[in-house]
């Protein structure tokens, strides 16, 4: 079951903050966040693991609520370079392998 991302799209001015949410109907073992710029491959941002361990990006933060099966990605003081499509990938098994990706959130930062 594909996780649900919200919002579908958001437009910001430089310096504004944004939150992107990812919600699953299944219990999650980990949540992975990726950003894809137009015409490029998705690039890893962050992994959040069940139990609270977090690995990832130094300018973007995220949370993982295991009980609610939700994750949120926080982009603060957005820059033009943050523009792109953000995907969450959810893993329901403990093997560290397959992900199910959401449909994506399009973020556009304007000057």
């Amino acid at each position, binding site marked *: 079951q*594909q996780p649900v991302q919200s919002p579908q799209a958001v437009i910001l001015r430089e310096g504004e903050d944004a939150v992107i949410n990812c919600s699953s109907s299944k219990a999650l*073992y*980990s949540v*992975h966040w*990726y950003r894809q710029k137009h015409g*490029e*491959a*998705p*690039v*890893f941002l962050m*992994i959040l*693991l069940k139990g609270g361990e977090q690995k990832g990006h130094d300018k973007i933060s995220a949370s993982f609520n295991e009980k609610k099966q939700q994750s949120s990605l926080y982009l603060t003081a957005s820059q033009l370079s943050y523009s792109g499509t953000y*995907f969450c*990938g959810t*893993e329901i098994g*403990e*093997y*560290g*392998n*397959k*992900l*199910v*990706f*959401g*449909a*994506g959130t399009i973020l556009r930062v304007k000057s």
Partner: protein
Amino acid sequence: DVKVTQSSRYLVKRTGEKVFLECVQDMDHENMFWYRQDPGLGLRLIYFSYDVKMKEKGDIPEGYSVSREKKERFSLILESASTNQTSMYLCASSFRGPPPDTQYFGPGTRLTVL
């Protein structure tokens, strides 16, 4: 740096043709993946391989097959291409977990089936 390369950036084929998309990674990753990306649908997993000659179906395997004869190479095969297979195809690779690892993506192949 991890490198995942795909054989073509753009490909145009005719309905009924057999199509091969190839992916090569240079990081000695056990896992390799083929995704299809369509607007509004995100990345959908077609097939996954966790070792040489091993494969698992993903969410949308119908109309596709795969081959992994060597660790670094994972091929996606469309036995008889159809217009509804026009899409962007992305390959990815990662170390086998646990714990979960980053997936590294190739640049993608935009396939058009006429």
